[in-house]
């Protein structure tokens, strides 16, 4: 093999603390190195051209570039060597910037270290093999998981682009959290007025199949061809027959059921249509509350239903589908605010969450849009808002800012004044976070025009005294303790990843962070991709965001999916495992551990052998580390290649 080595200065980024020429001179003495030089900017056009020229001039068969991290420019240089006629895998990088020049100032030590890293790279390169991808056909259908505003946007964009879309929503209606909101900031326009038409579009789009009250049961397969099972939960109502007339919900005698859509503000019935604009507008029975399903006696809804749609014997149904790509848009849940005993949430009826307050504000909510104290139905005058309940709190493992609470609290303070002109709002805040178009102006308006009193500090205790709630807190700007006698306390509860998001992540084989938010492929450059090819993210499931950002990400995820599924064939990554059948004893340990079910047992002349399903293998190499006889090897990271790197260090 004839290896060429290029030591990049990266301007002064590397050359400032590494003697690049000395490294190149040292590299020239390594086995199989035919050419070594230093170069100002390897990644710039002149640098790439110089590499191509050197490959041709010195008949190089492999290239080492010592520069920045391979996570940055490995793809760049692979293309460079490819342009010079080499296979793209006949290339190695030594990271002498992030791992050397940027973390130490000792030039002697850095130069020595850089030279050793180059030695490792060259030693590995000597064992590199040419690898070629394979291609396979693509299923042009998209699965969108989650029917909130992000999922709706992704589904509509993809469907408009001509893709078939399957939209799966856990609740009986799409709309997500946005459908529960009364108004939106900073325009204070009606939430259901802007979301409603989009929901109707979903229902009417010829390319969209909607499975509401359904969940993803399992996912197998790989990019281009995922096999998905969807569990359609038993709603006990035949939705083909149901017209959404609502007669059943009027007659149902189980009138003390928990109202999920209205966040428990007031009770509802066991058979429900969540709200008037629900899509699909179909009734469903919540099993745990239904008298017939739990106690065996009742049957009122079946009696009154004009179309005979009620079916108490209904069971969950599994639907199977093959899709080419998946968009996860599972949104968020509120943090459990009841753990803050000092605020009395859950103990004192007049301490409510922001989302409950939203339902109290909404004209379609259980109070008909009239703000009333849950305890006695009286209109409150002094309303205290406590921000950051559950946000920015490392002690409960939620150190992050939920992002939208400052804004919705300001909106709720404005709406409070609109509803009750002689009311006074008090907002306890830590910092006001309002970056966004018109956002900061909005938080000023609430203070200047609506005269909400903003108190910079936290609340220590809320307790009832008489028919008031005493709110004890601090105003840190004044440096004093303050107390407010409140009629109603609204907790601006922070958000966390939806409760079952981890389960879905495991089904989709995508990673999630310690809070349960799905991990994007790259925090800057791949914000909607995941590290599992063909799975994209939209909305708050990736990280908390407000409505416009969720919509934007929905569109972005759709664009990525459309791009992927616009192709007829896909290439598979060749850095995957391969089996030498003659060494394999068919023990199946690799099959046992493979996280992707990418290895199958085959019969080779009567002997069981392992075989890698090339399009499924993700290239983790767990099988390689598991196989005792080393019969299964990970291409580009074989035992011998890693051993060569170890040897390059240990021998010298």
């Amino acid at each position: 093999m004839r290896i060429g080595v290029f030591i990049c200065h990266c301007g002064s980024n590397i050359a400032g603390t590494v003697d690049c020429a000395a490294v190149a001179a040292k590299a020239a003495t390594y086995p199989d190195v035919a050419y070594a030089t230093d170069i100002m900017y390897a990644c710039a056009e002149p640098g790439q051209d110089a590499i191509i020229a050197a490959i041709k001039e010195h008949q190089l068969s492999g290239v080492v570039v010592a520069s920045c991290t391979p996570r940055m420019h490995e793809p760049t240089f692979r293309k460079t060597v490819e342009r010079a006629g080499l296979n793209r895998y006949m290339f190695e990088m030594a990271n002498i910037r992030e791992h050397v020049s940027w973390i130490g100032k000792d030039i002697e030590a850095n130069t020595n270290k850089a030279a050793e890293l180059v030695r490792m790279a060259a030693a590995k390169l000597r064992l590199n093999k040419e690898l070629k991808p394979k291609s396979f056909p693509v299923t042009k259908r998209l699965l969108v998981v989650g029917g909130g505003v992000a999922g709706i946007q992704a589904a509509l964009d993809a469907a408009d682009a001509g893709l078939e879309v399957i939209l799966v929503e856990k609740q009986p209606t799409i709309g997500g959290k946005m459908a529960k909101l009364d108004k939106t900031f900073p325009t204070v326009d009606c939430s259901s007025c802007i979301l409603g038409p989009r929901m109707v579009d979903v229902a009417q789009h010829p390319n969209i199949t909607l499975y509401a009250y359904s969940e993803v049961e399992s996912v197998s397969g790989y990019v281009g061809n995922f096999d998905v099972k969807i569990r359609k939960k038993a709603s006990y109502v035949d939705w083909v027959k149901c017209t959404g007339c609502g007669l059943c919900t009027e007659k149902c005698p189980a009138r003390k059921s928990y109202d999920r859509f209205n966040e428990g503000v007031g009770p509802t019935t066991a058979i429900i249509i969540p709200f008037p604009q629900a899509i699909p507008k179909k009734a469903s029975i919540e099993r745990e509350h239904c008298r017939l399903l739990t106690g065996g006696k009742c049957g009122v809804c079946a009696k009154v239903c004009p179309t005979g749609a009620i079916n108490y014997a209904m069971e969950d149904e599994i639907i199977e589908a093959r899709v080419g790509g998946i968009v996860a848009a599972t949104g968020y849940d509120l943090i459990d605010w009841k753990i803050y005993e000092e605020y009395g949430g859950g103990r004192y009826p007049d301490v409510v969450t922001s989302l409950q307050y939203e339902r109290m504000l909404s004209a379609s909510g259980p109070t008909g849009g009239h703000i009333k104290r849950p305890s006695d139905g009286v209109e409150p005058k002094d309303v205290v808002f406590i921000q950051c309940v559950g946000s920015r709190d490392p002690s409960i493992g939620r150190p992050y800012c939920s992002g939208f609470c400052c804004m919705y609290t300001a909106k709720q303070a404005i709406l409070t004044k609109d509803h009750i002109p002689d009311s006074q709002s008090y907002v306890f805040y830590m910092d006001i976070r309002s970056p966004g178009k018109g956002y900061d102006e909005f938080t000023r308006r609430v203070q200047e025009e609506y005269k909400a009193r903003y108190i910079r500090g936290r609340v220590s205790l809320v307790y009832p005294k008489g028919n008031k709630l005493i709110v004890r807190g601090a105003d840190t700007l004044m440096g004093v303790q303050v107390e407010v006698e409140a009629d109603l306390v609204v907790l601006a509860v922070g958000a966390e990843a939806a409760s079952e998001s981890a389960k879905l992540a495991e089904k989709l084989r995508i990673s999630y962070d310690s809070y349960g938010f799905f991990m994007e492929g790259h925090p800057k450059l791949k914000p909607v991709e995941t590290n599992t090819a063909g799975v994209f993210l939209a909305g708050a499931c990736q990280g908390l965001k407000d409505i416009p950002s969720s919509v934007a990400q929905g569109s972005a995820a759709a664009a990525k999916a459309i791009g992927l599924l616009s192709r007829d064939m896909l290439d598979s990554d060749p850095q995957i495992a391969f089996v030498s059948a003659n060494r394999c004893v068919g023990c199946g340990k690799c099959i046992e551990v493979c996280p992707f079910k990418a290895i199958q047992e085959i019969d080779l002349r009567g002997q069981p052998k392992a075989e890698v399903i090339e399009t499924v293998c993700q290239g983790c190499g767990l099988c390689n580390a598991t196989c005792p006889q080393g019969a299964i090897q990970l291409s580009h990271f074989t035992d011998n290649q890693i051993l060569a790197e170890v040897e390059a260090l240990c021998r010298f």
Partner: protein
Amino acid sequence: MSVLNTKELRIIGFLCNWCSYGGADTAGVGRFTQPTDLRVVRVPCSGRINPLFILKSLLGGADGVLVSGCHPRDCHYAEGNFYARRRLELLKGFLPVLGIDPRRFEYTWVSASEGQRWQHVVEAFTAQIHGLGPARGWPEAPELEILNAVAR
């Protein structure tokens, strides 16, 4: 090229590409100064690491070996680090039987965003290895001893 002027000891790191290698990059981008002893072998996943790589390194003259992967539950490949945790923990417990101080081998989890944590890990581990001093080598075949001497 022997280890630099005896200032450095030979420390080999096996880092998963997705989290810890990224974390080391993040530390570099943040200019978090670190000791220079560590040499990093990049592998796709901590699950790729055969404990024998570590034994090979330690028998081959490494003074310390550091393995770092994604935090449990954050594995890019979903499960690799869970397997690694079992294998590496067993290995660590095994080293004393060979007369190798178990502190010469550590494994940990560093995510791609934890540049500062990576700096801390490298500093702490390097200090630990320097505290233990150079490892005593294992006898090689006589002919190799000569060859190595020549190579040096």
